[in-house]
């Protein structure tokens, strides 16, 4: 069984702060990490590798420095790593991103594609299902458990109020929740071994994809404008009766879309 895990290098958004003066994101010095859900997806793949001898490749699309994320994945035990990088890929929205990643998966071939449920920067959770559609394979999202039983995957699929146990034949795509799997640490042998390994670059010329469908031009959605969260420096303290206090709290939280 061949597994491809899609990993994304992301800024650690829990460390992103807003500059109260310029009201912009302070990204300097914010470390890049493997997206947490993707690390859990890699852990699923590595457990399947141990339990039933799967071959595990990792793929990322991003700039050259995303190689760091791939090297970490190799040091955790992945077999091969591929970096999808090309200026033609830049500016892609989720549909264009999924088109590019799917074209690479087609080239490499996979029985199982694993993604994270959601990337913590873009936060859309759309790339996984869109890759599955481009590959014309079934998807299971929000997975909290993945096992390989009698030639099929058995997946526990979470909803807000229930779960389903699903049986899906390969080829298929599963998106994994980080809360379910604790990723292993890099191990010394693999850290040494990854040094010898190549991270293979895949560029526009290596994949079959219509240039009209990728990059900024191939992206149906456009970011029209951005704004940072209003910096709430103004601390307000009110002396109120319980009834007015409750009303003020509810109104404020609703207005801020917090409840």
């Amino acid at each position, binding site marked *: 069984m061949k597994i491809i895990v899609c990993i994304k290098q992301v800024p650690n*958004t*829990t460390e992103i702060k*807003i500059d109260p003066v310029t009201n912009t994101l302070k990204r300097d010095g914010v470390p890049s990490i493997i997206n947490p859900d993707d690390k859990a997806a890699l852990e699923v793949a590595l457990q399947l590798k141990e339990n039933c001898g799967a071959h595990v490749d990792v793929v990322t699309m991003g700039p050259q420095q995303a190689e760091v994320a791939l090297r970490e994945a190799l040091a955790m035990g992945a077999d091969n790593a591929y970096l999808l990088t090309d200026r033609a890929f830049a500016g892609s929205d*989720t*549909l264009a991103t*999924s088109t590019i990643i799917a074209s690479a998966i087609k080239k490499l071939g996979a029985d199982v594609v694993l993604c994270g449920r959601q990337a*913590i*920067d873009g*936060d*859309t*959770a*759309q790339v*996984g*299902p*869109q890759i*599955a*559609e*481009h590959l014309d394979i079934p*998807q*299971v*999202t*929000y997975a909290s458990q993945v096992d390989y039983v009698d030639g099929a995957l058995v997946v526990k699929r*979470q*909803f*807000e*109020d*229930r*779960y*389903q*146990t*699903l049986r*899906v034949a390969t080829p*298929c795509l599963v998106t994994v929740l980080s809360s379910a799997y604790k990723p292993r640490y890099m191990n010394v042998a693999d850290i040494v071994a990854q040094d010898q390994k190549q991270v293979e670059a895949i560029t526009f010329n290596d994949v079959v994809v219509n240039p009209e469908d990728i990059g900024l031009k191939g*992206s*149906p*959605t*456009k*970011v*029209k404008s*951005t*704004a940072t*969260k209003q910096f*709430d420096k103004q*601390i*307000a*303290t*009110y*002396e*109120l009766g319980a009834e007015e*206090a*409750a009303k*003020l*709290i*509810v109104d*404020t*939280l609703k207005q*801020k*879309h*917090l*409840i």
Partner: protein
Amino acid sequence: MAKNIFVFCEQRDGEIQSVALELLGVAKQLATVSGEQVCALLLGSNVADKASQLVAYGADVVYVVDDVNLAQFVTEPYTQAITQIAREYQPNAMLFGATSIGRDLAPRLSARLKTGLTADCTQLEIDQDGNLFMTRPAFGGNLFATIVCPEHKPQMSTVRPGVMKMMEPDYNRQGEVVSKTIAWDKSKFVVEVVEEVKEVQTVEKIEEAKLLVSCGRGVKDLTEAQNLATKLGGTVSASRCLVDAGMVDHNRQVGQTGKTVRPQVYFAFGISGAIQHLAGMEESEYIVAVNTDKSAPIFKVANLGIVADAQAVIKQLNKLI
């Protein structure tokens, strides 16, 4: 030409989910500006009788697909049904709740229909030509982006539950109900539901909760606080005082010797705000503090501070929500 605003009306076990009614409410507002109709998509098995509810909440037309293949949510049959309807009626826009169903279904559909999708919107606007402006948080809520999808139809978005306002229902409203049959491609039905189990979530980790109702020595009785947390979809946490007093389990303690939390909303009821407590919660997105002592240090980190009796405020909140 692409026309009208379509709303996927999510139901579970035949119950229309409130996010669907919220979407009908916002769709109605948008459709008034763009001069379009609101079209509800009602998919499921034995759900046709729910169409009148959707009309009451703002749908002008309800397309019903009542079919055993839709009894449980599975991506492919739902995708096939909506694809067929979208190809037939050419919607201008299509809205989904940003739930674990909507966020599975909508991206699959967007790729099949080859159009754009905006995720987890908290604000929607439209112009007279029907162009949608979809605003959404990204980067863990630190940034808001307004997204457009100018050249592809339908313009699709998932919308965060609890944000949009539903209309007052009007059961005298008139609407058209259209029943559709789908030409299934069953060769694609390859995901088998082995079991489906409903869960009531009780104990959850306070580090993972989006909302915490945290109580300190100023709160004497936790039942009302517990109620409030349940109503708001959050959970109860506490200062060390209540943990030491045996009122709350240690795994719910916030602070230096407890857990570090960063919920979207942190209520501090009757908590003084000792430095060891602040260490565990000051990174919360929005802090509401209620304390009788105007000079309590907790007010220094609160976004909204109220000098009042905590127990009474909790009680009033429970009445309001």
